């Protein structure tokens, strides 16, 4: 499937809830052959439908969920690979949802793709997100009983460690602050 076909599939299923963020191509080698990546934004309630549409059409592979803490909200990027198995035709698809900080919950994808359990457990312990319906929400990498969420930027615990950027060159704008 190409980026255009994936976008069409999602638009057909979800209408104008889907908004295109970015469709890029990266060129490699002396032949400058291109590979594609597509990023699409959705409201959180429609994510499950979108992934169900993908599972009906093909076998998406869920890579990981990355997050971005933006003060009042938390952006989640669900990274998938769609269309593996054919030479150079795979697309890296990112589905972006925004969660408000006071209600960090989203339905689980493990009923569609059981392999998503690892990355959802990680998201639960590192960001404090509740994946509704997840079969197992114990901590995966952090010791049991840990209360901090290390990848958030607002938790007091993450401020315990001061930033340690070694500056090779003095930057006026930053150091002047």
């Amino acid at each position: 499937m190409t980026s255009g076909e994936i976008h069409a599939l999602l638009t057909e299923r979800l209408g104008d809830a889907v908004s295109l963020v970015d469709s890029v191509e990266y060129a490699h080698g002396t032949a400058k052959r291109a590979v594609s990546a597509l990023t699409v934004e959705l409201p959180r309630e429609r994510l499950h439908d979108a992934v169900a549409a993908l599972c009906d059409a093909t076998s998406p592979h869920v890579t990981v969920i990355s997050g971005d803490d933006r003060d009042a909200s938390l952006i989640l990027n669900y990274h998938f690979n769609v269309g593996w198995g054919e030479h150079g035709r795979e697309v890296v698809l990112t589905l972006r949802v925004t969660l408000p900080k006071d209600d960090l919950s989203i339905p689980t994808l493990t009923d569609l793709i059981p392999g998503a359990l690892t990355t959802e457990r990680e998201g639960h312990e590192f960001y404090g997100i509740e994946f509704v319906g997840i079969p197992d929400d114990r901590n995966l990498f952090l010791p049991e009983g840990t209360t901090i969420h290390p990848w958030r930027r607002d938790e007091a615990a993450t401020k315990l460690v001061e930033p340690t950027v070694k500056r090779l060159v003095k930057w006026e704008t930053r150091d002047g602050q």
Partner: protein
Amino acid sequence: MALPRSFKRALWVFHIATGSCNGCDIEIVAALTPRYDTERFGIMLTGTPRHADVLLVTGPVTRPMRSRLQRIYEQTPDPKAVVVVGGCGSTGGVFYESYNIVGPIDEVVPVAAYVPGCPPRPEAIIDGVVKAVAALEAAGVSR
């Protein structure tokens, strides 16, 4: 207490990784293989700390591994020597200021020899083990 003569004939080594990246661990195993072949000196990897003379420790100590490292150290009978392999065990290396890292290995157990490098070569590791045992002999007491 003088070291028993068996120390010169055979040295049994137990390896523990406290959260390392495996680079040093692979070089330790490479030291056993025919290119470097420590078994001709009688140095052998053993499966339990209770039979070990030397503890080879790698990795920056992560929080969950700290208590395990202490327990392994206590389970190893005297005379023993701890050899730290790698830069992250010696000083922390590239891993500093993380919420899950306790510190270099000498914050947790006393160390006889450090083998710096990221990772050190197998020859350096063998040299470190030999130096640790020589230090034990010179001290004449168990560590």
